[in-house]
């Protein structure tokens, strides 16, 4: 049995090794770290609870559940991909490893204080990544990212303490605190729910709490953008799926769908807003940041729709499951697609010397390989069947008809707009007549070969999505409507 305490120990040892080792080793260590995490998930059958004794008020319970296993798989993919694709400095690699260790803790713990500690620990390496290796506006972006997301987590901390003191609990164990939520006054319950959803929506991010995202994504170095976009945004989604849903269903608000409706409205607004803004962007990286917001909006809609169905006792099991599993699938699919896209944008920028769509044009003529990969990544992002983006999106869309009825037309408008800005960008950047001002351009071959890894995963997950769910004995898993 590969226990989690050994895992964290091994991971920290690997990180320390890369701190003391010579140049070049750190990159291999990142890959090794990812492989260890991958092995850990596989060896525990992706579903296991580790119970250690309490230390004072901290309860050392770690759980590998459905969502966290999938996120750890994504984590190990991103780690391997980063180490293959980018030649980052050892310092950056160590920060990456630190980030990954924090995320392992975050996704597995069942204690609110430990969860909060890891939640904040993630900010530290990210802050330095942006601040040290970022673009020309890096100081501003790093500070904005740090403060903005920190504001959210403060409210989450207040929510945690409210639960702890109001319930008079002895530990910060999630299960006991969540199940005791309905015993405290309603005002406090509302505050707890607000604190959590506020933190998660900022991290996800959902419009209107997304202002940190475009600056962060654009100013980060490309490897940092890949990490932040594919992993950090999943923290919010993880929180929504694993913490907010049980919190909400255990509160006394669980028989009114109002909060669920607000979440759906935010999700739809987020999708439409980000699509409209993305349509006008000229910087490809900035455009794809908004695309990322749009993809995460599907998860918001799915969570809201799921809560709506459960709170209204619709007993529409099919729609509930489509929404929930669609959201989980969207997590991993978005993580892979967006890391592929941002690394391709990086390759394009290095080849053509620009990220501006208007300065490109017809690069398919000179760089057919790169253009094919960009086309594939964009089609995956538009959710064409055969690519993994399709599975999550179609599940969420099909499921949300049961919730939204004719309001679904707003979501569908968002889907059309998503297709529009992708196609619009493709037409102006890789198709059309070749922009002779670019001169003779060449793409780095190794970077193109590296993109085959995510592309292969996108195809595998898109053509046979059952492979992901096949690992789990889903029929025996407690469904998320009840406490995990």
């Amino acid at each position, binding site marked *: 049995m590969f226990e989690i305490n050994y895992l964290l120990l091994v991971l920290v040892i690997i990180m320390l090794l890369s701190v003391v080792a010579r140049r070049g080793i750190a990159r291999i260590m990142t890959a090794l770290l990812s492989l260890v995490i991958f092995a850990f998930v596989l060896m525990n059958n992706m579903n296991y609870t580790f119970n250690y004794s309490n230390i004072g008020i901290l309860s050392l319970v770690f759980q590998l559940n459905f969502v966290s296993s999938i996120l750890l798989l994504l984590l190990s993919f991103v780690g391997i991909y980063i180490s293959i694709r980018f030649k980052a400095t050892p310092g950056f690699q160590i920060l990456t490893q630190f980030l990954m260790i924090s995320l392992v803790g975050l996704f597995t713990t069942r204690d609110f204080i430990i969860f909060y500690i890891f939640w904040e620990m993630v900010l530290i390496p990210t802050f330095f990544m942006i601040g040290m290796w970022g673009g020309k506006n890096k100081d501003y972006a790093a500070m904005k990212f740090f*403060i903005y997301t920190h504001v959210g987590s403060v409210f989450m901390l207040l929510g945690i303490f409210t639960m702890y003191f109001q319930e008079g609990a002895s530990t910060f164990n999630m299960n006991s605190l969540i199940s005791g939520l309905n015993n405290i006054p309603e005002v406090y319950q509302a505050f707890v729910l607000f604190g959590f959803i506020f933190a998660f929506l900022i991290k996800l991010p959902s419009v209107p709490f997304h202002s940190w995202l475009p600056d962060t994504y654009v100013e980060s170095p490309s490897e940092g953008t890949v990490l932040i976009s594919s992993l950090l945004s999943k923290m919010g989604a993880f929180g929504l799926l694993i913490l907010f849903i049980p919190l909400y269903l255990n509160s006394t608000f669980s028989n009114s769908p109002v909060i669920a409706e607000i979440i759906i409205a935010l999700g739809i607004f987020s999708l439409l807003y980000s699509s409209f803004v993305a349509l006008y962007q000229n910087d490809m990286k900035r455009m794809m940041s908004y695309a990322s917001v749009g993809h995460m909006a599907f998860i918001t809609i799915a969570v809201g729709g799921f809560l709506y169905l459960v709170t209204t006792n619709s007993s529409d099991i*099919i729609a509930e499951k489509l929404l929930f599993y669609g959201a989980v699938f969207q997590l991993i699919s978005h993580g892979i697609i967006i890391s592929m896209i941002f690394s391709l944008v990086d390759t394009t920028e290095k080849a053509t010397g620009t990220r501006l769509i208007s300065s490109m044009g017809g690069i398919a003529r000179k760089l057919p390989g790169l253009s094919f990969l960009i086309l594939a990544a964009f089609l995956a992002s538009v959710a*064409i069947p*055969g690519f993994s983006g399709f599975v999550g999106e179609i599940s969420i869309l099909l499921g*949300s008809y049961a919730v939204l009825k004719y309001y679904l037309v707003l979501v569908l408008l968002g889907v059309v707009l998503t297709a529009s800005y992708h196609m619009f960008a493709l037409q102006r950047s890789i198709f*059309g007549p070749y922009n002779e001002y670019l001169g003779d351009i060449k793409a780095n071959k190794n970077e193109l070969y590296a993109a085959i890894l995510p592309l292969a995963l996108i195809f595998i997950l898109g053509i046979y999505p059952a492979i992901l769910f096949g690992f789990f004995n889903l029929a025996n898993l407690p469904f998320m409507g009840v406490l995990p």
Partner: protein
Amino acid sequence: MDIQQWLVFLIFGLPLISFPFVIGVGYIKKNLSMYLGTAVIFVSFLIGLYVFFNYTVNGIVISASVNWLPNLPISIPVGIYADNLAMIMVLMVSFVGFLIILFSVGYMAEDPRRHVFFGEMVLFTSSMLGLVLASSLLMLFIFWELVGLCSYLLIGFWYYKPNAASAAKKAFIVTRVGDVFFIAGIGAAILYSQGAALSVANIKAGASVIPYVWQRTIVSLLLFGGAIGKSAQFPLHVWIPDAMEGPTTVSALIHAATMVTAGVYLIARTYTIFTPLSLAVVLYIGVFTIILSGLIGLVVNDIKRILAYSTISQIGYMVAALGLGLGATSIGLSIYQLESHAFFKALLFLSAGAILHALLNTRDINKMGGLWKKMPVTITAMFIGALALSGFPLTAGFFSKDSIISASYSVNEIAWVLLATGGFLTSLYTFRLFFKIALGKPKTFAAEHAHEAGILMLIPIVILAVFSLIFGLFQNGFYTFLGGAKATITSLDAIPAVLMLVGMGIAYYAYGRESTIPEKVAKASGFLYRLVKSKFYLDVLFTNVIAERVVLGFSAVMDGFERRILDGLINTWGYIFKNAGLSLRKIQTGLARQYALIILIGLFLALLLLRVLMYLGVFH
């Protein structure tokens, strides 16, 4: 799985699996891709024939389904469902697909990226076959999107042409508008039937799979929304004319014979859940599209765009036939028109392709003329195609279209009048096109030096011409095979035939010889002419108003809001805290006397506050 299930799977599975190899061998030798691609589709056709004659004609429906997401507690079937309707479509798609790909071997012989072209054509054909053989709405949608993707890639095949890149984008986005309605339709079908209506077999078994009429109306109208986008019916027809920027063989295969009829197939496939209300919508959209695109077809000068508008109008007949609501007879009428249209429209596009090949890609019919003498085989085949398209008696189009017009008489007389008028328009624009190309004197140097295409390109043209002539023989067998009533020719059928001949005569009178009549008519009709010439301003509305002004303008506003207001608000918070810190810093002077003074003032204020509070009764 049994052998027959494997065979049906191979019909679309073989090309689907082999399409990467078709592209791959192109990197060894480009011509290998062409031969492999053609061979694969031919094998597909042969398997289809085998299955058809061994199983389908004996009434055996082959179906097999697996759960797309096993381990999930819900069942989302994907698989094959090969009944009469599907197998008839399979034969048509693979046969016409094979002929067009054979034609492409000659047509694309000099293109440097022809291996990619053939790969994409094979992927398209397999997706189309998968679409017709799909056993569930979800699988149908998957292939529905894949054919759309291939259409996007193939329209933009010559991506370095700005028009092609723009047309590809337009086609993708406009059909996407339809597709999202399809998604909503599937979502509604799942909700109202607890997932049962996902399966094509359950839908075919009867309307009761979705319990209530209003639910069926919603589902069927949403599905019809998808069909409108894909089959280019009003108002989403605007993408097809632009899509003509792709290679002509692509237009023949995708935008005439197969993909654009997928919407018709979808309606036929889910026909049981269409309620009278949604059928009326289907009928009127179809009829309206026929008239609208027939009129536009009269004034366009681009040879391929005339054919594109004609395609829109002919699909209108298929849609209208379904909208008549005659049950299996409607399906028979519609699918028969679909197949005969596939033959003669593919024929017309291929002969147009041969003409473009000879005329160095001149597409303006005013720059042609006198080609009958230069390219006798091609133009004679085109003549047959034109006769069939306009419904000349005893050609394929006569049996398919006139039957629809006659059948509509007993259902809806307004529709009958409009459908017959549409037939008149069809023959008018068809022979305007034909006479301008074939008769008269060559207008340009290129037209003077036109020559017949190679034998490889003529074979498919001749085969299609033969089918356009004799397809009428199969009419009765076709209807009964699909479970409809037998066709009867009545005196009613004479009216559309006469109208067709009148249209042909007018076309000859105005365009078949030197004449100034068209200019005079154009001048006399003034505003009407400008209205039709500008395509009823629909393109202007969609592209220039909605896309460029409204959507892009709104997105510019949103971008400004994002940068200035929302981001400005966040930065203002930061600014406030930063400046508060800067100004409060000034209190920290470090002078002990000042601190002592502030302490004294603070003490005084605190005591005063205490006193006031006690006076108010807060403390005692």
